């Protein structure tokens, strides 16, 4: 799209767009192309010779049980993180939307965790869930009799990173659900109330369907967040351990590429992730948007 009334200049528009194109090409397209090329190559340990191996890196990747395990871990981790943070965010937003008083104060008290870095959120929860000092860990042990030990037990470690990642995302979801709920016309809700629908009925029959575009968007964003931005949480809390139980795909790219120096495999993993992101984007824009109800 372009304006009807535009400026005429031969050189200026190129000059204006140049910085953007330069950084995009230098830090998106060139690295992406390099990654793509690297994913078809096998380097010797000293990085002196590269052999073109077609899809060998990808085939090896999908045959690698560690990689498949990482895929499952990531799916579990993202689903759990998205579920916890979305349900909490939706619940709190519904409550906040019902409140008459102190709305601004309530919002203030709920949005600030957004500003906490994932890595710092990791530190906070590491302290809360530490097997020997953590207050939450001790309460779990005492009240539920669970032998909580994320240092040794993979499942516990996964729960810990899910908590640390989901916590800070609650405020993000809260903001979107609040915005979504405020855009629902009051008249609809009042009409339903006149027809005798209870608050719960109104929530399920009116608020939820009209909120579904927001819900859909927030779900996509939460999954992307859990996939890519939780690197900080995992690096501070578990470093992928114990025994690879929290080794998500992005963490594995980092480990294989920068610590294991397995360049071909790391590049192939990056390409898989890039394709995934592109797929999610296309799905988001093309397919699912049509199935969701819109207010307008």
């Amino acid at each position: 799209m372009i304006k009807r009334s535009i400026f005429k200049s031969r050189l200026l528009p190129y000059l204006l767009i140049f910085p953007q194109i330069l950084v995009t090409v230098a830090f998106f397209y060139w690295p992406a192309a390099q990654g793509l090329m690297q994913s078809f190559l096998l380097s010797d340990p000293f990085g002196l010779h590269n052999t073109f191996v077609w899809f060998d890196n990808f085939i090896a990747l999908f045959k690698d049980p560690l990689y498949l395990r990482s895929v499952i871990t990531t799916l579990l981790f993202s689903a759990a993180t998205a579920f916890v943070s979305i349900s909490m965010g939706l619940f709190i937003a519904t409550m906040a939307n019902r409140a008459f008083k102190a709305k601004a104060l309530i919002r203030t008290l709920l949005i600030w965790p957004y500003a906490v870095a994932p890595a710092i959120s990791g530190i906070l929860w590491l302290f809360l869930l530490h097997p020997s000092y953590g207050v939450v860990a001790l309460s779990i042990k005492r009240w539920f009799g669970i032998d909580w030990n994320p240092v040794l037990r993979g499942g516990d470690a996964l729960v810990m990173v899910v908590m640390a990642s989901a916590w800070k995302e609650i405020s993000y979801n809260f903001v979107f659900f609040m915005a979504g709920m405020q855009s629902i016309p009051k008249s609809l809700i009042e009409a339903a109330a006149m027809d005798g629908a209870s608050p719960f009925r109104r929530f399920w029959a009116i608020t939820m369907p009209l909120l579904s575009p927001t819900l859909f968007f927030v779900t996509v964003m939460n999954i992307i967040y859990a996939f890519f931005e939780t690197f900080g949480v995992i690096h501070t809390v578990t470093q992928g351990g114990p025994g690879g139980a929290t080794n998500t795909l992005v963490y594995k790219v980092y480990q294989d590429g920068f610590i294991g120096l397995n360049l071909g495999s790391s590049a192939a993993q990056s390409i898989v992730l890039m394709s995934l992101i592109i797929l999610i984007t296309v799905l988001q824009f093309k397919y699912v948007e049509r199935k969701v109800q819109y207010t307008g």
Partner: protein
Amino acid sequence: MVEKTPILDTFTYIFLMLGILIVGFPIIYAIIAATLSIEDVSRVPMPLIPGDQFVVNMQTAWEKGDLGTQLVNSFIMAAGITIGKIIVSMLGAFSIVYFDYRFRTVAFVTVFCTLMLPVEVRILPTYEMAANLFGPFNSLWSALHLDGLAGWIAGHDVEMRLDFSLLDSYQGLILPLVASATCTFLFRQFFLTIPEELCEAAKMDGASPMIFFRKILLPLSKTNIAALVVIEFVYGWNQYLWPLLITTNPKMMTAVIGLQNLIPQADDLPYWNVALAGALIVMLPPILVVLLMQRWFVKGLVDTEK
């Protein structure tokens, strides 16, 4: 609301308080822990009454973690990313919306294909790029066998290699993260809603494109810029993977990375009071930005869909 539901309202407030408490708990607990001495913080269970060691712990964290230097680095990085992104994307959007030229569509598509691609999926090649900015030229040079050509012209063997590394530098921390289509997209959408008449009037008054940009677009974009400042500052401050890779010199580390040195490991004394005091210091600037600019923050979040 529409009818009187006293019981439900009571529950609403109870649940709300509970929700706020759950969301706030990690921080409240961290603040309490940061006020305790090492003996108290490692007692099981930890006392919930604040102690008097707050200032001492803060000072220890500040010195042990070299937070002074790192906070400055974080600030430069966050501010650089914010300012860089806004300038680059505003000019880009202006070019795309207000001019018609041959490669307009190409430029548009080139930029918007990168809308969703986070730095995390392309770390290794981006790192290589940052390690030598002239990498593409070197590859092009050797791919075209220009060495041989230059050698033939000069009459002797010539080796061409350009090196310019961004590792351990502010440019390296900032530049790769400036590349983002979200801001450009936002400005484009906003520019498209600006009435055509403004541009026509400006043209009639003989304003040049840049005068129009400065005198009309810039003032109109104020709220958008404010919203982006909040979002991007928080984004820049909280970056983790990229600064972790690109900085090896402790003097260049950002505060979020540096905090890792304060976390007690298995065989250390559990100085959690100091670690949490440090964490509180480091998380304060972005929290302040979000809370003080709350109105723009909510707008920014909903607009950029970040």
